[in-house]
C-alpha cells in the first residue's frame, strides 16, 4: 500500500480535469457555430455539468413539471400523487408548515448525485453518471437486483412492481433532451422559475445570491451542494429542510465507503492465499497430524 488514498483521488481528479479540458477544446473546435444550449462534454468535478436549482419559495404547486414529465415519457398517470412511482418520476409533495398559513410544495425526483451510490452499487453497470450531469439507466443491462434502491441515500429509485419483468424507474434528467440541446421538460414547463436549469457552478452562484439577498427569509443552506458528496439538483427554501422531509445524509459520498473496501479486496485475496500457502508448507514439515 505505497500510494496513499488522498493522493490517488487528487491524481484522478487532475486526470479528469485534464480530460475535460481536452474534451472541451475538441468540442469547441467541433461545434462550429452550433446554436443554443448544446450540452458539451464537461467534467462533473469542474461544475460545468448541467444542474437544476429548485427554489421552494417560488413553487406554487401547479404540478406543471409533473404533467410535463409524464407527457415527455408517454404516461397518463396521476400527477397529483405525492410519492414517486414507476410512472411518476417527479412528484410534488404538499407540506403543511408550522407558523405559516401557506403550505410548501416540495419537488422530489432523482438528485443526480455527483458520485451516485446507485451507479457504484449496480452489479452490471446499468446506472452511470454522464459527463453532462444526468445519472442514466440502461434498462437492457438491469438484472433487477434492486441494490440501487438500497444504496440510494435519498431513497429515490422505484420499481415496476406491477410488471412480471420489472425495471427500475427514476428521473433521467431528460438526458435525451439535454443531448439534443434542449432543457428538461419539467424546467421548461415551470411557469414561476421555481425549477431552473443551468450549469452547476452558475446555479450555485445564483442560489448564493438569493440566500444573500434575503438572509432573513431563506434558510442559509443549499441542499445538494455537499449532501452525499454533492448532487446535480440543488434546493433552497425558507423552511428548515428537515421539516420538508429532506433526508439528513451527511456530506461523505456513500460510494467512498464501499470503494475503500473494494480497493482492499485484491490485497486481502493475495494476503489470505499467501498465508494459506505458507501454512500448508509449514504444516507439511511436521508430517500429518490430527
Amino acid at each position, binding site marked *: 500500500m505505497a500510494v496513499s488514498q488522498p493522493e490517488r483521488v487528487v491524481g484522478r481528479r487532475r486526470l479528469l480535469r485534464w480530460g475535460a479540458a481536452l474534451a472541451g477544446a475538441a468540442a469547441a473546435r467541433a461545434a462550429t457555430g452550433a446554436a443554443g444550449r448544446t450540452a458539451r462534454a464537461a467534467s462533473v468535478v469542474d461544475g460545468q455539468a448541467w444542474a437544476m436549482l429548485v427554489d421552494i419559495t417560488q413553487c406554487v404547486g401547479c404540478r406543471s413539471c409533473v404533467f410535463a414529465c409524464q407527457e415527455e415519457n408517454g404516461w397518463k398517470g396521476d400527477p397529483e400523487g405525492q410519492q414517486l412511482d414507476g410512472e411518476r418520476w417527479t412528484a410534488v409533495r404538499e407540506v403543511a408548515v408550522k407558523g405559516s398559513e401557506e403550505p410548501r410544495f416540495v419537488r422530489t425526483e432523482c438528485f443526480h448525485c455527483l458520485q451516485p451510490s446507485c451507479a457504484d452499487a449496480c452489479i452490471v453497470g446499468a446506472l452511470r453518471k454522464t459527463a453532462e450531469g444526468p445519472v442514466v439507466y440502461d434498462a437492457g443491462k438491469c438484472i433487477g437486483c434492486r441494490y440501487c434502491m438500497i444504496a440510494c441515500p435519498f431513497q429515490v429509485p422505484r420499481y415496476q412492481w406491477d410488471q412480471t419483468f420489472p425495471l427500475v424507474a427514476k428521473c433521467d434528467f431528460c438526458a435525451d433532451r439535454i443531448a439534443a440541446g434542449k432543457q428538461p421538460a419539467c424546467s421548461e414547463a415551470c411557469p414561476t422559475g421555481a425549477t431552473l436549469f443551468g450549469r452547476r457552478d452558475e446555479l450555485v452562484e445564483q442560489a448564493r445570491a438569493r440566500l444573500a439577498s434575503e438572509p432573513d427569509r431563506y434558510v442559509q443552506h443549499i441542499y445538494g451542494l455537499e449532501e452525499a458528496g454533492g448532487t446535480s439538483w440543488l434546493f433552497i427554501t425558507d423552511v428548515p429542510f428537515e421539516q420538508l422531509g429532506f433526508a439528513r445524509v451527511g456530506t461523505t459520498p456513500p460510494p467512498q465507503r464501499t470503494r475503500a473496501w473494494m480497493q482492499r479486496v485484491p490485497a486481502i485475496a493475495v494476503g489470505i492465499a499467501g498465508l494459506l500457502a505458507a*501454512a500448508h508448507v509449514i504444516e507439511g514439515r511436521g508430517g500429518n497430524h490430527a
Partner: protein
Amino acid sequence: MRPYWRPAANSSGSALGAVPAASGSERAGLVESIRPSLQAAGPVRLAMGLVVAAALVAAGYRMIYGLGAATHLSDAWPWGLWKILGVVAGIPLAAGAFVVAAWVHVFRHHGYESLARPAVLAGFIGYLTAIASLFVDIGQPHRIWHPIVMWQPHSVLFEVCWCVILYTTVLALEFSPVAFEKLGWQRAGRIVQHFIAPIAGAGATLCVLHQSSLGSLFLIAPSRMSPMWYTPWLPLIFFVSSVAAGLAVLQLLAWVADRVYGQPVAESIRAGLARGLTGVLVLYLAVRLGDWSLRGTGPWRTSWGLEGALAWAELVMGIVLPLALLLAAGVRAGGQEWRVAAAAFTAAGVLLHRLDTGLTSMREAAWLPYVPSAIEWLVMAGMVCAGILAYDWVARRLPLFEHGREAAR
C-alpha cells in the same frame, strides 16, 4: 440388502439398486407406480416433498405474475426475505465447508477428514439454495448471467456474485471425488485429489472475501440503517460470525450423521469443533462489544423496544449462552448435547444478526411496514426442504461417511 430409505445400522451405505419403484409392475398407472416410493419415503420426507411441490407452484406464480403480486416487497422494502434470509443469512450457515476443507487439506489436519465430505456436500447444497433464492428474487431472472459479462468492479454485489460463482465451482470440485468414487472413475478422482490443497485454499480465499463482503454490501447505505447495526466493521463482523455459524453447523452435521445416518463422528472431532467454536465466539463477542462501545451504541444504550430486544437476543442468546454451554460441556464428561445446543444457539444468533442488519435496521427509514407474504415464506421453506432432501438423497447413495474413517485409520 437393506432398503435405501431405512437408516443403516452398519456402514454399508451403498444401496443404489434398492429403489422399489424400479421393479414395479410394468403396466401400472402413475399412482400405482409411485405408491411404493411414497410409502418408502416416510412421513417426514413426504411432508418435505409436499412443501417443495407447493413451493414450486408458488415460485411459478411469482414467475408468471411478478414480484409485486407474489411478495410484500415495495419501494420502501426493496430487499426482503429471499435476499436477506435466503442469501445474506443463509450463506454463513454454509461456511463450515470452507473451514473444514482448509483445515483438512491446507492445514493438513487429516483427522477431520471424515467431516469434510458431509460439510462440503452441505455447503454445496447451501450455495445452490442461495443461488436459487437469488433467482426467484431478481426482477429479470433470465438475465442472471449478466454479471459474468457485464463487469462493474466498484460494486460489492459484483464481487460477491463472482466469489459465489467461483466458490460454488470449487465446492463441486471438492465433492467430485465422492461421485467419481461411486462411478468407479478412479483416475478422475486421483487427479482432483492431487490438486485438492490448492483447490481448498482457493475456496477458503474466496470465502474470506465474500463472507465479509456480504457485510460490506450494507456499507453504502449508512443513512438507511440503524446505528445499532450500521458500522464500518460490518465486513469483519460478517466474516467472524460466518466462521462461528460454519463451525456450529459442522457440529450439527456431526450430530445428524450420528442420529439420522447411524454414523457417529469421532469424539476428538466433536470436541475439536467445540474448542474452535469457543475461540471464535470469544472473538465474535469481543468484536461486537468493541464495535458497540467504540461507536457509543449497543443494546444497553437504547430504550427497550424491538431494536433493543433483538440486539440483546443477538448478544445473550447468540453469543453468551452458547459460550456458557460450551464451557459447561468442557467441564463435564459426555457433554455432546450441550455442544449441540450451543451450536444451535450460535447459528440462530448469526441468523438473527443478519436479519437485523438487513431488515430490522431499515425499519426507521422505510415508510411502509414489511411482513413477508405467504408465498415468500412458502418458497423459502421449499428451498430449505429441498436442500435437506437433496442432502438426504446423496447421503444415502454416495460414500459420504465411510471415506474419512478409513483415512483416519
